[in-house]
């Protein structure tokens, strides 16, 4: 029963530390490099490298704009090396109302979502992983179905549902909604992590009269701490990057997370203050990128955040 999460595909996806794509066959490849275009290995190898460098440049240019424009005193929309490097863009946006409050909102929203999701999915994963019930299979199918549903498609009905439930513009309401949408994936991941904790340890505790919940807390959870961290970070990054959900559900600027406030900034000053927009983008992206690096180290090369981070 070693299932992988659906979005991570049946094959474990290799994202090693430093996000290098893992290629286990290194020694082998050195002996006989598979050629791509011609039968002469050396020229094929050269060609691959050249093509990759060109592709890399294409990927670099849009990314480079954010970094360079954020340091440019007179940034434009085109990527260029700043004539005078300055941190003025950063100091201009690093005010409480511009950056810190929205970032704090993002943190509350993401951490709350992560916490609710992890607690609910640990509780749900325990019976699904430990007992063999007729209920398990339909539940897991429903969960798998939930991972696939396009959340974007739901936002209009969610809005009118929230109006009805009087939850519009409520941070807790939005947090619970985001937790619910990340639950299917989180239950899958948590159940798979839990399946890999051997049951024999629990049986010893059960014989000593411990209840299921005690065993879960004292025996299972300590053994799957890295797994729980991965699930939490995974959900956190997803919530941190989510624009559409808070954009629709949170209306007061004081409650809006950075994703929404940066869009408002773009609307108001986007056509003039490119440098500041880029600086704000940098500040907002940094936690997500740092957490991704952390999680890819935590999970080694046998697992990746493939899938939902994108959404």
């Amino acid at each position, binding site marked *: 029963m070693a299932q992988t999460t659906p979005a991570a595909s049946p094959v474990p996806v290799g994202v090693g530390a430093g996000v290098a794509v893992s290629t286990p066959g290194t020694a082998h490849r050195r002996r006989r490099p598979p*050629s791509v275009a011609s039968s002469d290995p050396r020229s094929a190898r050269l060609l691959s490298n050249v093509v990759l460098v060109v592709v890399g440049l294409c990927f670099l240019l849009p990314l480079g704009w954010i970094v360079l424009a954020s340091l440019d005193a007179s940034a434009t929309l085109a990527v260029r090396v700043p004539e005078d490097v300055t941190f003025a863009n950063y100091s201009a946006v690093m005010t409480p109302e511009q950056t810190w409050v929205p970032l704090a909102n993002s943190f509350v929203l993401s951490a709350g979502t992560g916490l609710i999701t992890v*607690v609910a999915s640990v509780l749900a994963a325990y019976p699904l992983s430990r007992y063999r019930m007729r209920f398990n299979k339909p539940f897991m199918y429903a969960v798998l179905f939930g991972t696939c549903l396009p959340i974007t498609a739901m936002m209009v009905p969610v809005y009118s549902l929230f109006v009805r439930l009087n939850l519009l513009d409520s941070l807790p309401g939005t947090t619970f909604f985001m937790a619910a949408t990340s639950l299917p994936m989180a239950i899958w991941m948590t159940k798979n992590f839990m399946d890999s904790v051997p049951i024999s340890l629990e049986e010893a505790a059960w014989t000593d009269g411990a209840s299921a919940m005690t065993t879960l807390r004292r025996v299972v959870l300590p053994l799957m701490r890295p797994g729980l961290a991965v699930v939490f970070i995974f959900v956190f990054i997803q919530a941190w990057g989510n624009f559409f959900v808070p954009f629709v559900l949170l209306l007061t600027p004081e409650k809006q997370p950075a994703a929404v406030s940066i869009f408002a900034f773009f609307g108001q000053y986007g056509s003039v203050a490119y440098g500041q927009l880029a600086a704000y983008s940098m500040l907002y992206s940094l936690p997500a990128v740092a957490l991704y690096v952390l999680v890819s180290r935590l999970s080694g090369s046998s697992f990746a955040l493939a899938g939902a981070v994108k959404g």
Partner: protein
Amino acid sequence: MTSVTAPLAPAGARGAGPVRPRRTPARRTAGRLVPLVPATALLALFMLGPVVWSFYGSFTNAALTGPNAANPEWVGLENYLQLLSDPNFPKAIWLTVLFVIASAVIGQNVAGLALAMLMRSAVRPVRAVVSTLVVTAWVLPEIVAAFAAYAFFHADGTMNSLLGSVGIAGPDWLFEHPMLAVILANVWRGTAFSMMVYSAAISEVPPEITEAATVDGASAVQRLVWVTLPTIRRSISTNLMLTTLQTLSVFTLIYVMTGGGPGTDSSTLPILAYQEAFKFAQVGYGTAIATVMLVIGAVFSVVYIRSLRPEVD
């Protein structure tokens, strides 16, 4: 959600559970299901709820403000009939299909597979740097990626300054070729996922098979078509499905880059639903579009889950 059954766990490794001899099997199963309550409640309220609400709301004339916001009336199939007569709807379907096929099915998949194969014969520093760049575009928050793509394709952006440096006056991509711009942007943003899936899959292709094919005189293209692709076909179908589902619901990227415009020239279904509901205040009509999208998503999901079935069981 309470199709609670009373299966006496066969005494397997996973069936034991804490010993509670006093309880009846039915009560024991009920007790075991208690921890599922929080998750089930959240899913029922915020996932199932909106889906049901979506079907219901699509039959009403709900509006954003005014009397129809508080007390929407039942209008039957009116919203769906309006869909059929609205020229923007078939256009949005076409644009969505174009967006999904060009950027996900072709763009991300082919680029991801090509990158994964090229990485294998590249020197280590090139491989490390290029894969980090590709993955960074994917790890960035979606709205930041959208800003970067907006700046790249803007009339005064990087693309045109590059074209200008070789003497070509580039068009205003976001206005003259909005679909091309958002498709390329989505390929840029999403290729990392396919690349990771495919490089993991390719690294598991047994080298003996490829070697045997080489000895038999197969060219590189023949090895790709007859050895590598058939071996990783499961990864291909999974990846196709997942990228399709992801791309179907892309909103932020298009909304930031073009706002669905000019006019409705880049309004895919998610954008159209949003605009009808919030810009033109026709929540009921927007909900009908959302329902259509949910049904399309559900069909794809069912196909995908059926193909995964052996792994769930």
